[in-house]
């Protein structure tokens, strides 16, 4: 019997919670390629992903969902095309405490535009408990300006149910009748 593999990509700026989100949903200990941050990243966190994060959801013996987290820094953008190949959708995580979260969102949507157009997008906004503004409505408005209609949820990357809900929305966007 052939193996069935799905692939979901987690993207977003540094510190948005990609690594944590993958860890919270993966049923294996995720692979991380963290390195001590040597640039401005270290003002937000001591270590950062340099290659990718990898987690997996095992759905029986022949079906797996591979979860790939892209490195947040733009200089690693060469990894993005590599990682998105064959993916079923993009989970874009945005940190609400960053100075310009809308710019982050626009940047990543433009960077992954082709992939999003071919698949689906869900947006998870993290750290809203630390900073309530901007609100989800404002994210939604900005998405509409980009002609994108995607689920935008407030999430805590550490909470499995939040990450699960994001992925469920991604899947249902493909097929509401699942």
């Amino acid at each position, binding site marked *: 019997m052939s193996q069935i593999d799905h692939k979901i990509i987690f993207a977003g700026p540094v510190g948005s919670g990609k690594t944590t989100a993958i860890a919270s949903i993966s049923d294996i200990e995720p692979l991380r390629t963290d390195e001590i941050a040597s640039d401005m990243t270290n003002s937000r966190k001591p270590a950062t992903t340099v290659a990718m994060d990898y987690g997996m959801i095992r759905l029986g013996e022949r079906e797996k969902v591979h979860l790939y987290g892209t490195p947040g820094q733009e200089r690693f953008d060469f990894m993005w095309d590599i990682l998105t190949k064959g993916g*079923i959708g993009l989970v874009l995580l945005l940190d609400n405490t960053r100075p310009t979260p809308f710019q982050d969102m626009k940047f990543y949507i433009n960077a992954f535009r082709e992939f999003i157009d071919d698949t689906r997008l869900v947006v998870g906004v993290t750290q809203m408990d630390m900073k309530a503004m901007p609100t989800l409505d404002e994210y939604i408005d900005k998405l509409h300006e980009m002609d994108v209609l995607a689920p935008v949820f407030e999430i805590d990357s550490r909470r499995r149910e939040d990450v*699960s809900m994001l992925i469920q929305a991604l899947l249902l966007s493909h097929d509401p*009748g699942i």
Partner: protein
Amino acid sequence: MPDSRLKVAFLSLPQRTHAVLEYFIASTGQGDFVLSPDEQQSDAAVFDFDNPDSRHRWERYHAQLGRPGILLSIVGQQVPMTVWVQKPVTTGSMLEAAARIKAGAWCIASPEPAVAETVAAPKPEVKTAPTPGPAPTPTPEPTPEPALAPKREPVLAAPVLARPGAVSVDASSAPVSEAVKPVAATGGEIALPPVLPPAEARVSDVQPPKCGWLSRLLETIFRAMKPRVTESQPESLPESLAGSQPLLPAESPALSQAVSAPAPDGGGVAADGADFCPDAMAADASGRQANVADDNAAPAPSAPYPVPEASAMPEAPAPEDEAGSDANIEAPPGPAPKLKAAPSPAEMADVARYCGVSDDIPAAEFPRAADRYYPYDRHLVSALREAYMVGAKWRSPTRLDLDLGCLIFVPAENCAYLDFPEEALFDRRVVSQPRRREVRGAGVQELFADLRQRLADRRVVKQPRRHKVRMVGVQEFADLQQRLASLTRLDRFDATLWKLGMTTAKGRLPAGTDVNKVFFLKSWPNMTRFQRSPYSLRIAALWATRGASLLETARILEIPQRYVFAFYNAALATDIVTDDGAAVKRSFHRTSRNQGRFMNLFKWLRG
């Protein structure tokens, strides 16, 4: 200038490990490592101790060339002339290993058993030698070299194995050959450690064996960690990294066909992040059988194997066949999924509270079914919605004066300030009937005279009502700041509206709603924070991707009408529902080609 980088040869590393390390050497590690395609030219080898092939190749390599190696393993190993790097590997641990190899600070032969280290670091039995040599001299040096003591990285790749202060090394323990035997059973790849064993059996919790029974216990634990060998292909990196085929295979028509129709829902409750589908768990409060479980529903595909949380996993039995396993990433499939327990009375009461208990009725009966409608304008939710919409539209605080008090909605923070208890919103759902202006019998002149007088008085021409929405100016809002501190702050006002919309309606519809009108979502509701009603996520997906009428939604998703109505009321209250589908059609002009392929994953996510 001579190349000081460490030339390493990879010895039959698992595919993923190989690719990751290759990437590492080409990027972060390029200043310290160089990959040598020829073992003969290498300064050291990198091998995976948990992989039998890799381990055997190391033995040959070492016997033939006598050069040191970097040993990758989940648990601490003491193999002569090696530096242990704990899996999953971090760049920091690899760089440190390179430094140790260059310094000749590798492990020497030791009678120590393999024990779990508390930190991702080489074993304490090291000897610093000026130059690497094929025959290191065993020197009992029980303490680690301070200069080479591993630094603890802030984010370590494998925190699972780390437990502070757990290791004490007993020099009189079992010989290394005995100790490594159980460890070898873990077998596998660097990148993906097996699913965690039960908490009590984690390696980090294991003390070094001091006697025979402890050693056997340790062996049993390690054997329990040994995953089941499957016939599936080994894990692979992204194809571009690993040079393999794309991960997403061509769609399987059979599978797609099998799961394309809505399947019976296995239930799930909101608390676990699942779409709330009580009807699939049991007959609902009214005794109605869930129509999602009817015979027309397509059979669900083979049940997935949800892997339970590590702490809840039962202790795995020792595998019967350990031979040839290099697939430690393949943890044993979890137990067959249990059937969802029937919803509790409290859950059913919640469903009834939000969705009512009415049975479905045919479309033709709706115009005559007065009990299916309620006077929306007379309910508090309509006033709150008005304040919410005005505030959201003009991005300005709005003030709503009700007979039960004042509410100030601040859209920028999605919060509201109340000078009455929050519970009153739910207790007092009906607002007073607006006073109707009596014009009957009044002459035209009299009416216009009245209007002129009102304009002259700068009074609001609009019909006065008991509740009043008005925008709060910047200065007024600034003046209000001190007062706001004394008011009840209601965060996530949209979530309150969402819930109030459902509890007000109880599965009914606002008067005048056309059940055959197609609705779309302007945006998805914030389902991670909003009260979830049964099937709300599915309805949201349907309305956000293609739109459907209320009755059509119930029919397509094969769910009771009242769940659709509940969602509609909530969406109406938060102003995310529309009959204009232009935005939806623009965004989803392409039909997904993956329909039905994600059934298993969806069920897994729903627990």
